[in-house]
């Protein structure tokens, strides 16, 4: 599978490019505290709002902090929140949706009605409500984004499991003496997980945007910790006098979202429409 993945990736230029960008961002996020050229928290009011220069390529923010260093630190926050939320919601959704669909009957019915109820609420509003109720902070933010996030995976995997569980090879596994647990993971989940993986990659962009939106509203990551969202939020008052504060984080955010999206589409092509 890995070999095939890279072979195909090499042919698809856009996906390859996205893959490189995403890997690059993840590397930046991993080593953020080693590669920041300046201390992202150190204020230098004499330099405030100054535009890009050779030594400070992204300029300074309103408190005179180096914008590039803050973006690099923000990458760590944004990507780790994105990945964490996606991983948690993915595992939750797969387990709950998969097991309910496999057991069927009343379990399936309960799952579907529960997700219907949750889906009736608009996701970002619910997240805003949760964060305002519990207070800001990374964990509350992750919790708020998880509450709604798992539903899409659960519903997606449910459909797939319902389709797969009546396949002959599942019956054959039963006759071959496999236990329910093994049948579920080895035969059913393995054959129904692909669309959920694609969904996960596509969702990564969405989660990062949600994080940015919540931080932009002042409900996510609170300053001085930099995240792309709260950096943009701070920058909006300086839209005309210091446009570089808007432009650079936006470009970074946009390229990440685009590359995640293209990569997701590539995976979809590879897994689902093969």
């Amino acid at each position: 599978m890995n070999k095939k993945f890279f072979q195909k990736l090499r042919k698809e230029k856009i996906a390859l490019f996205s893959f490189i960008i995403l890997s690059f961002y993840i590397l930046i996020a991993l080593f953020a505290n080693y590669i920041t050229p300046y201390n992202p928290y150190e204020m230098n009011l004499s330099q405030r709002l100054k535009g890009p220069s050779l030594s400070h390529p992204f300029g300074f923010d309103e408190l005179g902090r180096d914008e590039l260093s803050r973006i690099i630190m923000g990458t760590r926050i944004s990507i780790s929140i994105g990945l964490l939320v996606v991983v948690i919601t993915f595992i939750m959704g797969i387990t709950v949706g998969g097991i309910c669909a496999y057991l069927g009957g009343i379990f399936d019915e309960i799952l579907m009605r529960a997700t219907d109820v949750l889906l009736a609420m608009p996701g970002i509003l619910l997240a805003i409500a949760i964060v305002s109720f519990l207070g800001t902070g990374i964990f509350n933010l992750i919790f708020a984004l998880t509450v709604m996030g798992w539903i899409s995976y659960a519903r997606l995997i449910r459909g797939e499991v319902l389709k797969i569980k009546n396949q002959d090879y599942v019956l054959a596994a039963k006759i071959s003496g496999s236990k329910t647990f093994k049948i579920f993971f080895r035969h059913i989940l393995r054959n129904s997980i692909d669309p959920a993986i694609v969904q996960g990659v596509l969702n990564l962009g969405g989660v990062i945007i949600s994080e940015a939106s919540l931080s932009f509203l002042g409900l996510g990551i609170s300053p001085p910790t930099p995240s792309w969202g709260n950096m943009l939020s701070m920058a909006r008052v300086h839209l005309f006098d210091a446009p570089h504060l808007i432009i650079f984080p936006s470009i970074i955010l946009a390229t990440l979202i685009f590359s995640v999206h293209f990569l997701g589409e590539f995976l979809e092509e590879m897994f689902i429409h093969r």
Partner: protein
Amino acid sequence: MLEIKNLNVSFKKGNKKIRVINDLSLNIPENNIVGLVGESGSGKSTIAKAIIGVINYSGKIIFRGEKIENRDLNFYKNIQMIFQNSYGSLNPRLSIKKILEEPILNFKIVSRKAIPNFIKNLMKEVGLKEDIVQRTPEELSGGQLQRIAIARAISVNPKILIADEPMSGLDMSIKAQIVNLFMKLHGEKNFSILLISHDLNLIGFLSDYIYVIFKGEIVERGKREEILLNKKHPYTRLLFESSPSTWKGKESIGKVDINIKRKTTSNCPFATICENFSKKCERENIEERKISSTHFVRCIKTI
């Protein structure tokens, strides 16, 4: 060895209950090939599913004198099944090696170390090359897949092998190879086969004893020769005549006017479309009649 007594299966469709299998009894003796023949939708596969216990049924299924209640490892070790669609019965994500390993490990047929050698012999038995085990089902042909399915079923040395339409979707020459493989394995391994097919020629060629099923009821049963040479039930004759053969003219193919759908109170399942239907069929309770000690037919108009 395996006995089915008064099997009833029905499915719910809305509020209606649809009877699929109606009070059916069947017996699979030791080391025999028992053929079950009937048209699509007659309930053949349902019987197989009832035996392996994946659908709800009422009635008794008796294996070696004991009524089967819950199917444990020991039951599946004795009763294996080959499915209609061999590609669908093999997990597309696993290599052939992994697929074959599964029952061997679950039933602890041989130790983990001995598995590669065991699989090697297994492949030889079903007439496949060893290196195929590295591939996935997608990369094999229909005939090869069917052989893999057979290999998986016989790997645990079952006492009974249920083969549900094992030849469907295979071309003539591959069909012949698989038939020969069945004969060979049956001869070597001493297991019984419940052969389920719509093809009376195939059933007639392989089986020792034949059951003819129509709408979930047995209409005729008898030894192979009795069914082939002395068919009594109009449905059995229809089945035979319906199989196209190069040597028969086109006119000889059996015809049933599907527009005739009699409304009748007769308890004969075939009464709705039978050519020989008469008032007598409605008046009398139609039960199995004895032709010989092994040959029974459910028709009052035995000709």
